[in-house]
C-alpha cells in the first residue's frame, strides 16, 4: 500500500497533466460555445507544455545556465548531471508563442463567425447555416 502511494506521488506531474488534458478535451467536445472550446484548446496546450517541462526536471539541480561561463571557459567543464535538461525548455518556449498565435487566429475566427451569424453557440450557428 505504501509503495503504491509513493509510486503515485513520485509521478505527480503526470497526474496534473492528465487532469488538465481531460478538462481541456471535455471543454472542446462538450461545450457548445466557441469561446469555451477555444479556452479548452488552450488548456490542452498548457497541459502539453507542463508535460514537456516536467520531464526535463532533475531533482535538486539548477537551471541550465552555466554560472560565470565566460571566466571559467576551459578549466571548468560543465557536467550534464548538474543542470536540468534544456531541450524541453527550448521546445516549449517556442510552443508557448505558437499557442498564443493559434489563440489569436482562433479568436479572430470567432469574431468573424459572430459577425456572420450573430451568435457563438454551435447549435444556433448550425440552424442558421441550414436556414436559407
Amino acid at each position, binding site marked *: 500500500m505504501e509503495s503504491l502511494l509513493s509510486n503515485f506521488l513520485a509521478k505527480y506531474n503526470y497526474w496534473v497533466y492528465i487532469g488538465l488534458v481531460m478538462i481541456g478535451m471535455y471543454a472542446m467536445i462538450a461545450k457548445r460555445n466557441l469561446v469555451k472550446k477555444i479556452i479548452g484548446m488552450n488548456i490542452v496546450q498548457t497541459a502539453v507544455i507542463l508535460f514537456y517541462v516536467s*520531464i526535463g526536471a532533475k531533482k535538486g539541480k539548477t537551471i541550465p545556465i552555466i*554560472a560565470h*561561463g565566460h571566466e571559467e571557459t576551459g578549466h571548468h567543464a*560543465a557536467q*550534464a548531471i548538474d543542470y536540468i535538461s*534544456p531541450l524541453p525548455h527550448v521546445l516549449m518556449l517556442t510552443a508557448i*508563442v505558437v499557442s*498564443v498565435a493559434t489563440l489569436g487566429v482562433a479568436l479572430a475566427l470567432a469574431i468573424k463567425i459572430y459577425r456572420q451569424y450573430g451568435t457563438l453557440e454551435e447549435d444556433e450557428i448550425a440552424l442558421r447555416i441550414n436556414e436559407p
Partner: protein
Amino acid sequence: MKTFALITVLLLGGLLFYGTPDFPDWGDPASPASLHVSPYYIEHAVEDTAVPNIVTAVLADYRGYDTMFETAVIFSAGIACLFLLRVYRRKSARTRLYRHNLTGVTLRIAKGGKLPEGSAEFERIDSVWVPYDMIIKVTSRLIVPFVQLFALYVIAHGHHSPGGGFQGGVIFGAAIILYALSNDLRRAFRRLSEKAALLASAAGVLIYVGTGLLCLLLGGNFLDYSMLAEMLHTDAIMARSHGILIVEIGVGLAVMAVMVSLYYNLSSAGRHDEGL
C-alpha cells in the same frame, strides 16, 4: 453529447493513466529525455558558442531552423488575423463622441458633422461609456517606460540570464498593449501605427532569414554564425554568440509587432477605430 464527451474523456484519461507507470519519476536524472541529446548541449554550449544560457544557445544556434520557422509561424498568425478581421471603412461613417477636458461635457457629433480633431481641449472618446480615469492613466504612464526598458534588458541579456527574443518581445508588446488599454486605441496608434507594427513584424523575420542567408553567402551553412567572424571582428566562437544576439533581436521585433497587431485587430474587431 455531454455523456459522449464524458465517456471519451474518461477513456482518454484512463489510457494516459495506464501508460504513465512506464514514464520516469519526477525529477529523475536518468530519464530518457535528459540522456541523449541534452548532455551534449550542456557540456559543449559554452565552448561552442560562448553563451552560458544553454536554452538560448540551443534555441538560436543548434536549433536555429526550428526557431526561424517558429518566427514565421507567428508572423503568419499576425497576417492571418489581419486578413480575417480587418475592415477598411470610412472613419466619419458613425456618430462620434468628444469630451471637453476641462468641464467634462460630452459632445455628440452626428454623421458628417464638423469635428474638433486635433484640438487640445477636446478628446475623442469611445461610444461605450468611458469614465475619465486619472489613476489608471498616470499609473500606466509611470509603468510603461520601465516595462519597455525591462523588455530590452530581457532581449539583450538573454545570453547570461533567463530571457531572449520571445520573452522580451512579449514583454515589450505587453507594454504597448497596456498603454492601449489604459488610454485608448487611437492614442496607441499615434505611438505605434498599424503599418509600423506590420513592417516591424516583417522586418523581424527578415533579420532572422537575412542573417542565415548572409552566412550562406559567406561560404558557410545556412545560419552558421561563425562565418560572420570576419565581419564582426571576432573569433568564430564569439561570432556565434553575436549571431545569436542579432537573431534574438529579430525574433523580439517580430513577436512584439505581432502581439500588438493581434491586439489591435482583436480588440476593435478589425475596425481600428474604437476598441477596448
